[in-house]
């Protein structure tokens, strides 16, 4: 059995930042493994540990810089990785269809039985790649999965999942494999990479692939969405902000709270 996990290196902006054109100035960005993908990686590794002969492969669309992040997944137990990059992919915004097209080419090569993605990427938060990919490769899917019965999956080839709906309600769904599941945070407890894992990750393969390697051309990855502006949202806030030392601000807040009857005996 083969499990493919999509992992994205996402940018996080620091507290204070500047916008340069249609992006946040690079100086204020920190890169990390997407939070949701960390849970997807953990789920795949747990599946591998529970079954026999399960290979876990991760794939990313990203520049060379992303290798550091991919290594984190390798250090946590992913067997090998694929990194797709090409000048033609270096756009402000890769839309969902474009990413699905690239991943589809990888899926056609790798033929995984199960694909795990995150529910959303923490940076541009489309929340769409996994389901679009499933449709594109003609597989079943389930979005926002916060529970997966691993034993049932191994025994029956059916993903018995909980989908986390709004308001504390979960939907119980059975999905036939091959399938794509988009993984929600909290489904498991992502491990920290062990020292041994980190050492082993150094010798694991991260195969670089261009569009041509995947049988694609620049024309196949022309996004239909264009980022035309980025700005800090105008604050609609009329919040009263207390300034000063912790002692002073706490005292000011305390008097407001008392006025509201909080803490009064």
């Amino acid at each position, binding site marked *: 059995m083969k499990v493919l996990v999509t992992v994205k290196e996402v*940018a*996080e*902006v620091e*507290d*204070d*930042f500047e*916008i340069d054109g*249609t992006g946040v100035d690079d100086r204020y960005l920190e890169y990390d493994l997407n939070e949701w993908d960390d849970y997807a990686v953990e789920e795949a590794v747990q599946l591998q540990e529970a079954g026999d002969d399960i290979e876990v492969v991760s794939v990313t669309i990203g520049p060379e810089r992303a290798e550091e992040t991919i290594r984190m997944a390798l250090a946590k137990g992913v067997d090998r990785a694929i990194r797709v990059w090409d000048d033609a992919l270096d756009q402000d*915004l890769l839309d*969902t*269809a474009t990413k*699905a097209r690239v991943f589809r080419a990888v899926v056609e090569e790798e033929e995984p039985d199960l694909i795990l993605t995150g529910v959303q990427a*923490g940076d541009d*938060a*489309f*929340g*769409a790649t996994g*389901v*679009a990919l*499933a*449709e594109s490769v003609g597989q*079943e*899917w*389930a*979005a*926002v999965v916060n529970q997966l019965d691993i034993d049932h999956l191994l025994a029956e080839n059916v993903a018995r999942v909980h989908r*986390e*709906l*709004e*308001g*504390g*309600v979960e*939907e119980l*769904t*059975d*999905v036939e494999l091959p399938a794509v599941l988009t993984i929600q*945070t909290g489904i498991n*407890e992502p491990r920290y990479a062990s020292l041994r894992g980190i050492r082993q990750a150094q010798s694991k393969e991260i195969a670089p692939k261009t569009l041509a390697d995947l049988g694609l051309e620049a024309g196949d990855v022309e996004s*239909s*969405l264009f*980022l*035309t502006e*980025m700005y*800090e*949202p105008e*604050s609609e*806030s009329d*919040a009263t902000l*207390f300034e000063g030392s*912790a002692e002073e*601000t*706490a005292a000011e*807040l*305390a008097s*407001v*709270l008392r006025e*509201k*009857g*909080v*803490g009064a005996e």
Partner: protein
Amino acid sequence: MSADVLAVAEHRRGDLRDVSFELVTAGRELADATGGDLHVAVISGDVDGFAEELSLDGVDVVHTVDYGEEFNHDVYVQAVEALYDEVDPTAVVMPNSVNGLDYAPAVAERLALPLVTDAVGFEWDGALTATREMYGSKVETTVEVESERVAVTIRGGEWPAEETHDGAEVRAFDFEPDEDAIRSTVTGFEEVGAGDVDISEAEVLVSVGRGIEEEENIELVQRLADALGATLSSSRPIVDNGWLPKNRQVGQSGKVVTPKVYIAVGISGAVQHVAGMKGAETIVAINTDPNAPIFDIADYGIVGDLFEVVPELIEEFGGE
């Protein structure tokens, strides 16, 4: 291609969800801009009852798809595809809900439509320009769609709900799904997050977020709650980490709370969190990041380190 707009309503366990009425407003806004009609689709469940509720001001036609009871994405994708062929709309508008995320991307993919998700605003000028957020609401962007047709999902709570009833035409849509292509089975629902405490009953909530850093620091915020006679709640990562039980989680997938006072400690104010607490009478935020979106909805705030401010507050209220 017509200039019409097709909006897909959402319901669960017998009730239309709020976003359905917001979709009517958003869909009408778009249809006014494109110069077309607004078609609303309601798929599965008590479609006739739903159609009556959806005969709202601004709706031209409600299409009912009488097949199955609850949401099933395979049914939805097929039904929307068939309706798309029938209506030939320029835009398909869907909710950015959990179920929306489960079928909208597949609809877009199948119909080869560009997809914009989680729109908080849009304009139409021969093509769609949408406003969306990035980086956990720290920046806003405009996204231009280079296509005459588009699929878009809208964020809940951004458009007002249409509530004025008006007679729309209701059409029963003749729909025969390919049953072999319905490969996922919804087997039931489960309520989670019950337990000893009901945070939605509390008058004062002290809510802790990822800014607390370590499990053992939760106790500090608990002491503040005790000193204030308040109940402790949290954002999602605290529950994901297993530091507090699920019944303490505020937000889209947790509880919706409307206390008199909500004190957010080390919480950034992500949209899914805010969905659960924006109805609080007074919102207080303590956060080191002056750009944290929580300050946009706060009434009072301290830009400061919770590890310095919270102990002072505890002392103010004579706590231990």
